């Protein structure tokens, strides 16, 4: 995939959820601009253009990040913390997507400045609908400040 065109960064470790999400994106014609990373560490490398993604430019940051809460290596809350703590990434909208209905996750996510929080429904139709709304809102309606920063390396 050409990283320059990434509009949606999907951070998800469950292969079934990835397939379902991509199917939902395809149904909404958003699939071409999705990049999938499988754990929190890879997400941070992608976002901060390091290691495996050293060749990427910070200027091509994704327009929205869909972030699963439970992730290998670095969990979703920590990824969110790092995104919101760095001036280069803090403006990128982050949508937490999780199975969890636990209040403490929701509270902690909002304290860290998450832009939206959705609980993945068991019902696939509702899941498709949620993905559609996400794409519509964050990619089409939401006006972001222009990203002026780029990777130092």
């Amino acid at each position, binding site marked *: 995939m050409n990283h320059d065109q990434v509009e949606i960064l999907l951070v998800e470790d469950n292969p079934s959820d990835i397939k379902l999400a991509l*199917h939902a994106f395809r149904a909404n014609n958003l699939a071409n601009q999705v990049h999938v990373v499988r754990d929190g560490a890879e997400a941070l490398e992608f976002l901060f253009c390091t290691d495996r993604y050293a060749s990427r430019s910070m200027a091509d940051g994704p327009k929205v990040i869909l972030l699963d809460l439970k992730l290998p290596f670095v969990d979703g809350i920590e990824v969110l913390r790092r995104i919101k703590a760095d001036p280069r990434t803090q403006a990128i909208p982050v949508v937490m997507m999780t199975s969890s209905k636990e209040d403490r996750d929701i509270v902690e996510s909002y304290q860290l400045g998450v832009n939206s929080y959705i609980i993945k429904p068991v019902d*696939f139709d509702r899941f498709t609908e949620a993905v559609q709304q996400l794409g519509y809102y964050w990619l089409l309606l939401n006006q972001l400040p222009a990203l002026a920063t780029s990777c130092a390396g």
Partner: protein
Amino acid sequence: MATTTSPDELQHEIDSLHDRLAKLQHELAECRRSEAKFRLAAESLPAAMVVVNETGQIVLVNAETERVFGYSRAELLDHNLELLVPVSSRDKHAGLREAFFARPTARAMGAGRHLFARRKDGSEFPVEIGLTPIDAEEGLLVLSAIVDITERTAAEAEIARLNANLEQRVLDRTAQLEAANRELEAFSYSVSHDLRAPLRAIDGFSRILLNDYGTAMPIEAVSYLEEVRANSQRMGHLVDDLLAFSRLGRQQVKKERVAMAGLVRHCLEELRDQQAGRCVEVLVGELSPCSGDPALLKQVWLNLLSNALKFTAHRKLAIVEIASHLVAGPGAEKSGVPKQKECDENLVERSGGELRYSVKDNGVGFDMRYAQKLFGVFQRLHRAEDYEGTGVGLAVVQRIVYRHGGRVWAEAEPGVGAAFYFTLPREGGDGESRPG
């Protein structure tokens, strides 16, 4: 010339001397009786009694002194009091004794300190001592009453040990409970995450199959896939309800004054969908406010009212009655059965009283033989295809009511209707949860 005394006068003198002698003899007898009484009292005292003079010499001891210290009376009398004091404290004791004689007042000796005495065999034991100065002909004496408190001290030490033990057990048990709670929380958390993910996959891929390949599949295959979806969604609801139920056990009950009338109105508003296209008559009586957690009590009303609407679905005219009564508490009547009548004010006042809320419907009802199953988790008294639900609603109601210190029960008749009752303790006077 010498004065002579007449015989008469002499006789008179003699009589007078006799009288005085008799009187003295009488007084002496009195004195002896009195002393005997004193000795009897002193001897039968349950405390060792030791009287010392200003030089510290023992002038009097009682039987208990001999018993407690192991000395005979002869071994003590005229000896120095310090004989009965532990060797290490003798010098100090002599100084304190002299100071006491300088300013004698009746008091407990060494109040607040641990005092020890010494037996003839050299063993030491804890004592409690009371000091009383006595003004006697031979000078100032001091009476010490000495009580051996070995047993009491041992008992106190045992109580202290048991208390410490108990505290340790409370700490241990609390730690165990906290650990169990953490474990439960971790369990619920992973259930919440991990159980839902595969359900989502089952439902999602079934849906994709139906959407993308449904036309290529035989009708039967399509209907089986629909079954797969319906069941995965049902399991999703079960997981959610079970988690909500387990969370209830850990959640704090935050009590405040709750206007039940408003709460019920909100609930009925939320349940509007269940009444759509039906004839439902909801009769709301006067509902007393109570003290409770509004969010939790709302859940109680939602579940009871939703049940009432659900189980009246087949009625042409569904009737739901909601009411509250002030009734005597469970302690007011010997019978103790939850079924109670409204009773006179006095009885209510005596028992503290409680508020009883009720939801009655004219729905399908149920067989009272199964009433005890009603409030169990996943217990259902109707077939799943007739009335949907996970069987957690009434378990939630019961848990919330119990956590408020109330009771819940139901009465019903198949085909006639059901009535659900719950009580909440009436909290008054203590200022808690009162309107401001």
